[in-house]
C-alpha cells in the first residue's frame, strides 16, 4: 500500500508540477508542510493555521487565512468560501508566490502578473462585488495601522480616503461633482501597479531543500 501510494504520489507531483509551476522537490516539501499543519490529515481547516505562532503577530493574519479558503483563488470560476481545502488548493494558492520564470514569453508573463494582481485584489475585496469600496479600503488601512498602540481611527479614515482619491484621479480622470465613485475595480487596481513590477516583489523563496519542522 505504501509503495503504491508513493508511486501514485509521484505521478501526482509531476502533474501538479506542470500545472502550478513548482518543481517536484518543492511540491514534496510543501506536502510535508501541509501534513505537518493538518497533523497528518487530508484537509486543511482554518484552525490549523493557529499552530503557526508567528502568524498570530501578523496584522493581516485573518485576510491571509481567508485567502486560502476563497474559491476565487482556486483558478476555477467559483465564488464564496469553503471551510476546508485539500493539498491541491493549498498548492494553487501558494503558486501565486512563485517568482516569474525568465523563460516565459511576454504573454505568459503578463497573464502571471494579472493572476498575482487578481489575488491581491481579492484580498482587498472581501465582499466579492468586484470592486474595493471605501469601507473596505478603510478597513485595510486600519488593520495596517493597528499594529501600533494608538488606534487612531480618524487617521485611518483620512489616509484611506486620500488613497481612494488618488486612485480615482488616476483611473477616472474627470468626474462631475455629482458623480459617485463606486470603488476600485480591477482595471483601476492594475493601473495603480503600473510601472511597479509586482512580479519582482511578490514572491517567496520556495526551497528545494528540506525544511525541518523546527519553525512552526
Amino acid at each position, binding site marked *: 500500500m505504501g509503495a503504491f501510494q508513493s508511486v501514485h504520489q509521484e505521478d501526482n507531483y509531476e502533474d501538479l508540477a506542470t500545472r502550478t509551476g513548482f518543481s517536484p522537490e518543492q511540491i514534496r516539501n510543501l506536502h510535508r508542510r501541509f501534513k505537518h499543519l493538518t497533523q497528518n490529515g487530508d484537509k486543511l481547516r482554518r484552525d490549523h*493555521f493557529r499552530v503557526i505562532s508567528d502568524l498570530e503577530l501578523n496584522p493581516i493574519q485573518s*485576510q491571509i487565512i481567508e485567502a486560502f479558503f476563497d474559491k476565487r483563488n482556486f483558478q476555477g470560476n467559483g465564488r464564496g468560501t469553503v471551510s476546508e481545502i485539500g493539498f491541491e488548493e493549498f498548492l494553487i494558492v501558494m503558486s501565486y508566490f512563485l517568482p516569474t520564470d525568465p523563460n516565459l514569453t511576454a504573454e505568459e508573463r503578463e497573464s502571471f502578473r494579472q493572476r498575482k494582481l487578481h489575488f*491581491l485584489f481579492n484580498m482587498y475585496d472581501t465582499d466579492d462585488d468586484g470592486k474595493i469600496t471605501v469601507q473596505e479600503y478603510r478597513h485595510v488601512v486600519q488593520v495596517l495601522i493597528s499594529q501600533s498602540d494608538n488606534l487612531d481611527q480618524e487617521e485611518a479614515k483620512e489616509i484611506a480616503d486620500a488613497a481612494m482619491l*488618488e486612485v480615482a484621479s*488616476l483611473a477616472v480622470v474627470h468626474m462631475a461633482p455629482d458623480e*459617485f465613485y463606486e470603488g476600485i475595480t480591477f482595471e483601476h487596481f492594475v493601473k495603480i501597479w503600473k*510601472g511597479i513590477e509586482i512580479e519582482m516583489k511578490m514572491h517567496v523563496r*520556495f526551497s528545494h531543500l528540506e525544511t525541518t519542522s523546527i*519553525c512552526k
Partner: protein
Amino acid sequence: MYPSMSCWTRRGLLLALALGLALLVPMALSLGAAEKTRRSVGNGHGTGVTLRPDDSHGDGHGVNKTKKIFPVLTFDFAHVKIPFEISLWVLLASLMKLGFHLIPRLSSIVPESCLLIVVGLLVGGLMKLVGAAPPELQSDVFFLYLLPPIILDAGYFLPIRPFSENLGTILMFAVVGTLWNSFFIGGLLYAVCQIEGTDLKSIGLLPCFLFGSVISAVDPVAVLAVFEEIHINELLHILVFGESLLNDAVTVVLYHLFEEYSGLGMVTFLDVFLGVICFLVVSLGGVLVGAFYGLLAAFTSRFASHTRVIEPLFVFVYSYMSYLSAEVFHLSGIMALIACGAVMRPYVEANISHKSHTTTKYFLKMWSSVSETLIFIFLGVSTVAGLHSWNWTFVTVTIILCLVARVLGVMGLTFVINKFRIVKLTNKDQFIIAYGGLRGAIAFSLGYLLHPEEFPMRNMFLTTIITVVFFTVFVQGMTIRPLVDLLAVKKKQETKRSINEEIHTQFLDHLLTGIEDICGHYGHHHWKDKLNRFNKKYVKKCLIAGERSKEPQLIAFYHKMEMKQAIELVESGGGVKLPSAVPSTVSMQNIQPKKSNSERALPQISKSREEEIRKILRSNLQKTRQRLRSYNRHTLVGEPDEDGWNDLLLKRQKIMDMDKQISRMSNYLTVPAPPPESPTLSRSRLASDPQHYVPKPTLGNVPIIKVDLASPQSPEYVSVVDEFQKEAVPLKEEDEDAGGLTMKVPLGDPKKEEQEQQDGGKEQQRLMRCLSDPGPGGAEEEDEPFLP
C-alpha cells in the same frame, strides 16, 4: 541675437574670472615668499600708535632709531595665506561647477568629472607656467577632509530597502570581486615584469600585489559622479555603488598586508590567515563603530527639542567622529560612516524639526558636491605637479589587465550569484556593472601614501594609477551614457511614492511574511519583520522623543506627504494653479458614500440666510487671500511645527472634537461653490469632511485655523497656529480679522480649478491625493523610511 550674446559674455566672464583666480594663487604664493623679508618693517596690524623714536620697530631689527611713518595701509598676506588659498580653491571649484551648467550642451555630453579634471590640468599648467609649484593632492587632506562628506552623504541617503535586498550580491562583488581583481592584476603584472626587455625586473611580487590591490578598488566618488547623471535603474545603481562602498574594507586590509611585508619579500600562511581575521575585524569593527555613533546621535537628538538650531550639527559631528574613530584603529572608516548614517537616520528624522532636516540635507549635498569637485580638480592639478616616470609597457598592460579582470570577475561572479538570486542579472546588467567599475582618487591617494624609500617605483605606480583613473573617467565615463541608451537599459523610475503604493507595499510585506510563516521557511521577509518588531518595541522607545515613537509608519509617511503638498502649494504661489501630474476633477465628494437624508436631520435654512453666509465667507476669503499676498517678514509668527508633530496631532484632535460639536450645532454651511451645485450635495460633502469651514457665531471658542505662509520665494514653513492657545498672546494681525472667519489655506486640491478662482484656492482638501511632487531637488529625494 541678444540672448546668445549674453550667454557668451557670461561664459567669457566666468572663464576670465577663473583664470584670474588661478593667476592670483601663484601670485599670492610668490608674494608670500617675498613677504617674509618685509615682515620686520612696520607691524602690519598697526598695533598701537607708536611714534616713539626709542623703540625698535619690528622684530630683530636691532637698534634702528629712525622714525617711521605710521603705516596706514599695509600688506600682510602671510598670516592669512592658508585659509585664503583654501577659500580660493573652493571658490574656483564652485565657479567651475556653476560655469559648466551654464553651457547646456556640454554637460550632457561630457560628465562633470571629466571637465573638472581638465580644469585641474589647466590650472596646474598655468601655475607651472607662472613658476609657482602647484599643490599635490595630499593623502591626509584627501582622507580626512575631502572624502568623509561624500561618503556621509551617500550613507545618510542610502536607499536601505534595495541595499538590504541585494546585500548578498553586493558583498560578493565587493569582497570576492576585489580580491580576484587584485590577485589577477598583481600576478599577471609580475609575470609581465619578469619578461626580458622591459626594465621592470626590480619590481618584486609583493609590490605588484600591492599595486594590484590599490588599482582594483572601484571608487565611490567616481561612480557617484558618473552614475548620478545617467539615471539607470535602482538595482544596477545600488549594485555598483554598494560595491564601491563596501570594498573599502578589502582594500584597507590588502593594502596594509602587502605594505607591511613587501619589505621582507614574503608572506607566510600565518600572515594570510591573520589577514583574513583582520578583514573581518576591519569590516565588522567599522560597522560597529559606526552603528555605535549612530545610536548616540539618535539618542542625543531625542533631547534636542529645545536647541533646534544645532540639531544638524549633531548629525555631522557624530558621523565625522565615527569616521575618525575608525581610522584610529585602522578600521574601515568608510563602512563606519555608512553604518552611522544609515543607523541614525530614521530616528534622527523622527526627532528633529523639519527645518533641521532640510538643513542637514542641503548641507550634506553642498559639502559632498564641493568635495567631489575639489577632488577632481586636484587630481588634474596633481597630474601636472607630480614627478612622473612613464613606462609604456607597465601602463598599457595595467589598463588592459584592469579591463579584462573586471569583465572576467563580473561574469564569473554573476554566474555563481544567479543561482541564488530570484531576480537574475541579465547580460545587459553584467555589462553595465563591469563597465561601471571606475577608478578614482582613492587609488591615487593610496598610491601617494607609499614611502619612496621602500618603493622606488612609486613614481611609476603613481603615473600608472593616474593614467588608469583618467582612462576610466574619461573613456568609460563619457561613453557609458550613450551605451546605456543604446542597450536600452532600464532607467530609473521617476514616480514618487504615493500613499497608495505605501499602503500596498506594507500590505504586501505582511502578506509575504505570512506566507513565509505558513511555508515554514524563514526567509528574507521573516527576519525583516522580526527586526521591525524589535525596532518598534524597544529601540524606537529609547531613541525617539515623545509621541512619535509610537507613530505607525503609514501615518508618518502620510504626514510627510501632507507636508510636502503644503510646501509645494506655497511655492506655487498661493494655490491658484497647483502643478499636478494628472489634472483631474475628482474630489472627495465623489468618494464619500452617499448618506441618505434620514441619517442627518439637516435643518432647513432660508435662501437669504444662505446667501448671507456665503457673502461672509467670500469676503473673508478675500481678506485672507490679500493677507497672504502681502507677506511681511516681520509678522512671522512663532513656529509651532518645530515643537514636533505632537502639537500638530493634538491640535488636530482638538479641532476634530470642536468640529464634531459644531457640526451638531450648525452644519448647514455651504462653500461658495461653482453655481451648479445643490445645497444638499455640498452639505453632505462638508459634513463628512474632517475639516470644513466653520462659522463664527461666537468669538472665542471656535477653532480658527490660521496659516501664515511664507512668501513663494522662501517656502520655509507652513505653520498652523492654533488660536486656542492664543488667548493670552494676541496675534499681531488679529485686528484685520476681527469680525470674520479665517480659513485654512488649502493644503492642495489641484482638481477644482474653477472653484479656486473663487475661493482663492481654499478648498478644504487636506485629504487630497498625494502625487509626485516636482519639488526642489526632487530627483535626489531619498526619503524612504527605515525598513519600509
